[in-house]
């Protein structure tokens, strides 16, 4: 990603995205921040906690899971968003360029 920052994020599986019956693709430019693997991600903890409340259990055992808590932060600046209504990818997506 450092060499080629053009990336895309596909939200297609409700199990992971929490978006029922919708499919969204975000294309954007990624910025990899690995300057502080141990603490760089901490500013995003409130968002992480909102998505996965049980993360505090892992956080409490932080010293035992050093490898788990070393994290690269990848920030993606969206350039284009495509959405398939009702998750029907046989029909054209709606596109928004940013």
């Amino acid at each position, binding site marked *: 990603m450092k060499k080629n920052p*053009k*990336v*895309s994020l*596909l939200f*297609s*599986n409700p*199990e*992971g995205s929490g978006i029922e019956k919708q*499919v969204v*693709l975000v*294309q954007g430019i990624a910025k990899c921040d*690995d*300057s502080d*693997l141990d603490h760089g991600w901490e500013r995003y903890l409130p968002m992480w906690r909102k998505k*996965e*409340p*049980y*993360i505090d*259990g892992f956080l409490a055992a932080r010293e035992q899971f050093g*490898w788990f808590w070393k994290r690269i932060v990848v920030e993606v600046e969206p*350039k*284009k968003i495509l959405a*398939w209504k009702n*998750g029907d*990818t*046989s*029909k*054209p*997506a709606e596109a928004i360029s940013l």
Partner: protein
Amino acid sequence: MEEWRHLQTRGGNQFMTSLDLVDPDRISRFGYGVITWIDKDGFPFSVATDFLLSENGEILLKKPSAPPMMPGGRVGVLFNHITGIPTGGYTDRRYMLVWGRVSEDQGFLKLHAEELSEWDEKILPFDKLCAAAVPQAKKYLESLQPSIDA
């Protein structure tokens, strides 16, 4: 030593059929595939679609409505599964990532598999997967060291 299959990418320069590379029983346990290719602007374009296996083991992807792929261009097709645990974490994590090319075939895209990498935590538990990745992690951390020292 089936578990070690999951640490190696197979295929590459050898000529193989999709059936040689991809276990049809294993792939049939997935509900859909995600096709990815590079679009005209240089970004990865990914779209999920249904698929089926023909009687002779061909992987046929339902043709999605999407920008055209470069003729003969390379695609990656990800078949994946995950189940969330209500109390936290995930289980039944598995994927098969097939690299190859597609050709149109009666409303479907026929996948010509060239390379495969896969992981199934029921075959190779997550901790063993992590342990196997230690040399790669060590190399990465060593590459960061100069910027940490600076």
